């Protein structure tokens, strides 16, 4: 249900021992991919599969730093133009060449209204893609946009074979849905090739032996759909699967206690928060928001519900995200102070309100926890659980008072972690579901996204974080830790802070 | 108890038969001491009002009483052997073979999911060990025997495809399949229209003449008894209260109940003198709550003290007719002049 994902390449992690090459890695997934078209899907399972097939121009490492991908280098030419030098000699799985035309075809497709790509927001500042020469491409943006390379590193920027794109358009002419041709036979440049997909059951990938870089070590990877957490573990235990993705916090102890498997923890760039509708009484009062933020013990939630999987959030962005400033301090847990603040705000006797959440179990549990804690400062919380579709609609329309939500800064850049969430132009469905509108903050966020100077940007984001702590439009709960249940046979696995499994170096011990 | 001395050896003798139903902790004595005999080749009629135990008697003879019912006493002597002492397997050999039975409701007494032929043929398969095909052939013969037109076609039909009269013929065919020596017909025509009833009764009479079997004809219709039977047993509340040759019974009924029955019957062939039908007052007592003395005493116009106190025995006269009534005993303490049969009005 989270918005979702991006990518990143290699580095250390647990990549130490070498297992024997080959084998079929089975990943038990919560849900099936929606489409194996990076431009037409935005869910984690899809990204997880797509990452192995398609590659982007830029790659984020596990520290979220940008590394060359299909592009060897990039630089801003002027305020609104970025130039990328592409890697030569890269071939798609269908044998076609990767070059600047392909890049143009891909970006054009994402921005094509007929495709209505859910990824288009990542690139909608691009007004033109210029092919300078076969291996040089330029992106012209509508306004100065510093995080563009980070955006291009996103999984949505994975490059699809131009021939396939053409075929997909042809199919659309014939009445098919966009992307259906691509999902049927996805062609990228990645280290795994698509083999088969039985929807709802499993997707199988095989090694691309003609990979331009070092080929993957596994023969194949199977992404198997196992929706029940309990069952996923059973699969792990019986050896049917090697990885349970994700692992419920509640199952951590179980996995830890079982021989032959371990828990893989990965800090993430995700945020869990409880948003206040700042346009509604009494949450239009900053003091109330602060008081509530003060009255809830984040650590209790992290320990009690997420089983310690995560770190308390100070502000909206996680430490790995570019723009994070550790000097900013958050609101501390202090029930007495909270009561005082509430009294100051004129609600000494508390009030009644509702807390909306979707039917995600941890969120519901966290909501229940918050309900209990707020009762102590006299706030009577009614929990209302909505099913996802209705939930999105309700929260976008601002029908809520308090709401449990999350956000993942998939680009690893503070811009993505703040601009959609807090800029007043993004009220509602665009991301700002607290409906905060603070002119000073708006100004800082716009400035920060357009300034090409990283140092200046850092300063601006520090300022933004300070404002956000003070304004408390949301109660920042935690930056989750992604949990995997992994069989001891799996070597060389690591998970990206955007939740993607890094399978390039994985080997299976027989 | 004695049996009727007759020129004809009885094929079946029922002596002091008792059958009870045990529901909860009460015992319902449905049949409570029944005696009669069926002379060879003759027809015995059993009449009585509803609930008097006619059907239970016949089921007891074949030992078909099921839980919670039980034959609790007496003897059923068939060809000199007491059927109540036979094993279940021996009984099965007798049922449908030596003694057969026809039931009241031709609608419900045939299994709706099997064809007529299958059901008749089953008897041949069981008792004569015939194969399926042979059994069907014999079934066709039987259908012909009971006068069903185009039996080759009918044999493959299901009971619901036949009319009531035909079904009853099928029942008869089934009962007669293995040439039984005794046929028990439990109200074989009650559910049928009179014109059809006439056909069936005629058929039975005809078959009896041809095959020489003995028949127990159970009915509540005194007309049927008069026309088809040689002997009659009148039952009331689980007991036989009068047993006589048919002419004798109609000419000279002796039990007040028999007389009452005859009197309350409107006739289609003659006009009654009275506007009013003569009636038996009251109604049949509940089987769970029977009078202590003579069962008929509460309704009997002649009842005296002894009737209410003690149950009369079934006494036999010199002609072999039997009667269960204090009036005909030495101990009679009522009006000595009473002349029951003279009260007949029809």
């Amino acid at each position, binding site marked *: 249900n989270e918005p979702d994902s991006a990518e990143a390449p290699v580095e250390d992690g647990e990549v130490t021992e070498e297992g024997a090459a080959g084998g079929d890695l089975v990943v038990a997934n919560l849900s099936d991919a929606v489409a194996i078209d990076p431009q037409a899907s935005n869910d984690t399972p899809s990204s997880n599969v797509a990452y192995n097939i398609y590659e982007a121009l830029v790659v984020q490492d596990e520290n979220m730093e940008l590394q060359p991908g299909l592009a060897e280098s990039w630089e801003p030419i002027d305020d609104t133009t970025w130039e990328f030098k592409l890697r030569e000699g890269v071939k798609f799985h269908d044998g076609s060449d990767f070059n600047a035309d392909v890049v143009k075809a891909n970006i054009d497709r994402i921005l094509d209204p007929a495709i209505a790509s859910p990824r288009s927001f990542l690139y909608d500042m691009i007004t033109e893609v210029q092919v300078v020469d076969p291996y040089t491409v330029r992106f012209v943006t509508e306004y100065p946009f510093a995080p563009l390379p980070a955006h291009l590193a996103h999984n949505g920027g994975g490059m699809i074979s131009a021939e396939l794109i053409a075929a997909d358009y042809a199919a659309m002419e014939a009445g098919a849905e966009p992307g259906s041709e691509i999902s049927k036979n996805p062609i990228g440049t990645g280290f795994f090739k698509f083999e088969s997909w039985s929807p709802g059951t499993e997707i199988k990938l095989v090694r691309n032996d003609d990979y331009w870089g070092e080929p993957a070590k596994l023969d194949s990877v199977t992404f198997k759909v196992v929706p*029940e*957490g*309990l069952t996923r*573990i059973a699969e792990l235990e019986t050896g049917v699967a090697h990885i349970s993705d994700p692992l*419920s916090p*509640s*199952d951590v*102890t*179980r996995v830890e206690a079982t021989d032959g498997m371990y828990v893989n923890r990965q800090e993430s760039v995700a945020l869990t928060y409880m948003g206040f509708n700042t346009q509604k009484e009494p949450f239009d009062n900053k003091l109330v928001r602060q008081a509530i933020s003060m009255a809830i013990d984040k650590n*209790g939630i992290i*320990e*009690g*519900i997420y089983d310690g999987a995560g770190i308390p959030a100070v502000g909206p962005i996680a430490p790995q995200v570019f723009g994070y400033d550790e000097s900013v301090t958050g609101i501390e847990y202090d029930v007495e102070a909270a009561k005082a603040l509430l009294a100051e705000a004129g609600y000494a006797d508390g009030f009644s309100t509702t807390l909306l959440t979707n*039917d995600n*179990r941890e969120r*519901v*549990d966290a*909501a*229940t*926890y918050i*309900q*209990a804690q707020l009762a102590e400062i006299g706030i009577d919380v*009614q*929990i*209302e*659980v*909505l*099913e996802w*579709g*209705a939930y999105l609609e309700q929260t976008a329309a601002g029908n809520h008072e308090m709401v449990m939500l999350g956000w993942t800064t998939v680009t690893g850049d503070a811009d993505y972690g703040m601009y959609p969430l807090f800029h007043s132009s993004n009220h509602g469905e665009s991301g700002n579901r607290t409906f905060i509108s603070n002119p000073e903050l708006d100004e800082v966020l716009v400035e920060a996204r357009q300034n090409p100077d990283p140092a200046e940007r850092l300063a601006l984001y520090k300022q933004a974080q300070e404002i956000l702590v003070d304004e408390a439009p949301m109660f920042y709960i935690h930056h989750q830790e992604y949990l995997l249940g992994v069989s001891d046979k799996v070597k060389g696995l690591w998970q990206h802070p955007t939740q993607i499994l890094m399978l390039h170096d994985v080997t299976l011990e027989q | 108890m004695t049996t009727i001395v007759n020129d004809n050896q009885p094929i079946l003798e029922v002596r002091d038969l008792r059958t009870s139903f045990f*529901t*909860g902790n009460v015992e319902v004595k449905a049949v409570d001491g029944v005696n009669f005999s069926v002379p060879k080749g003759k027809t015995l009629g059993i009449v009585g*009002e*509803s*609930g008097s135990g006619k059907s239970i008697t016949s089921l007891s003879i074949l030992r078909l009483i099921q839980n919670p019912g039980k034959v609790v006493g007496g003897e059923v002597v068939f060809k000199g052997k007491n059927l109540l002492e036979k094993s279940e397997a021996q009984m099965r050999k007798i049922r449908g073979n030596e003694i057969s039975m026809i039931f009241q409701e031709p609608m419900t007494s045939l299994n709706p999911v099997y064809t007529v032929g299958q059901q008749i043929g089953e008897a041949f398969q069981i008792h004569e060990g015939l194969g399926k095909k042979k059994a069907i052939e014999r079934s066709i013969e039987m259908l012909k025997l009971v006068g069903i037109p185009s039996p080759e076609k009918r044999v493959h039909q299901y009971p619901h495809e036949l009319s009531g009269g035909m079904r009853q013929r099928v029942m008869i065919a089934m009962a007669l399949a293995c040439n039984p020596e005794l046929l028990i017909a439990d109200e074989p025509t*009650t*559910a049928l229209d009179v014109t059809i009833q006439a056909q069936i009764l005629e058929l039975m009479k005809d078959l009896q003449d041809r095959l020489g079997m003995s028949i127990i004809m159970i009915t*509540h*219709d005194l*007309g049927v008894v008069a026309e088809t039977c040689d002997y009659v047993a009148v039952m009331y509340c689980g007991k036989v209260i009068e047993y006589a040759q048919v002419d004798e019974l109609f000419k000279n009924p002796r039990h007040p109940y028999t007389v009452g029955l005859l009197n309350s019957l409107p006739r289609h062939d003659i006009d009654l003198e009275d506007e009013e039908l003569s009636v038996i007052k009251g*109604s*049949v*007592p*509940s089987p769970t*709550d029977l009078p202590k003395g003579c069962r008929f005493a509460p309704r009997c116009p002649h009842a005296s003290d002894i009737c209410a106190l003690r149950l009369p025995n079934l006494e036999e006269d010199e002609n072999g007719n039997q009667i269960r009534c204090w009036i005909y005993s030495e101990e009679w303490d009522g009006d000595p002049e009473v002349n029951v049969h003279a009260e007949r009005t029809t």
Partner: protein
Amino acid sequence: MSEQAINKSPLSSPPQNPRIQSWKNFYGKFRKNKAAMVGGFLIIFFILVAIVGPYVTPFEPNTQNHLNKLAAPSAEHWFGTDHHGRDIFTRIIHGMSITLYVGLLSVFIGATIGVFLGVISGYYGKRVDAIIMRCMDVLLAFPGILLALAIVSVLGGSLTNVIIAVGIFSIPVFARIVRGSTLAVRKLEYIDAVKALGASDFRIIFKHILPNVTSPLIVQATLSIATSILTASGLSFLGMGAQPPTPEWGAMLSDGRNYMWDAPHVAFFPGIAIVIVVLAFNIFGDGLRDALDPKTKN
């Protein structure tokens, strides 16, 4: 001669209130059915627990104690604690009234509408019947889960809406049963008799048909309570149901399934609780059926 001689002797017992008499008759039959008696007593017991239980439980149903979460059953926590450290025994006791409420109310809704449609359908027959019965077919053929989801989504997630959804599920069952009985009763001669007296349709339906279809109805209602409780817990299991922290058993079960490895009791006790309550209604319904069935002899 008569087609079928029918004659039963009158009860010669002294005049007594006939209602008491027939109740005694029913009760006499009912009492013989031991299982049904157990069911009846269990239900009474459950109702008592639902009323009194919440006042005597050792803990608060919603008080969390994360230090003592997922504790195994012990002398202090009879059924252990759940993932918020709440006492499961307490929550089950508090959930009793919810479960009964769900079962009873949803059946009430379903039965009311179902009976109405069934009687109309059976009594008027022809086109009315055809239309109503086709609609019932649609409902029957329609995956209930979608209906539930729709209702819960449109009206918002709450127990009441689950009850409405479950109630709607059960309409066709009642409509069919009542229609069937109505058809049977309508053929009886006493209906013709009151018609011949000039009774209106309204009177015939409400005074003469409805009271005489109650036996199968009561039986069905009891059994439907059982089914409804199951259905509702299924919906809660799928996450459409009571709002947390309501101690609804289906929801507890749904929560509990995540801890089956480490703390099987979290799912086990609510499950057993459902089984027992449903069982009680089932055997009670069975007993009622036997007692109300004129064919089973006293």
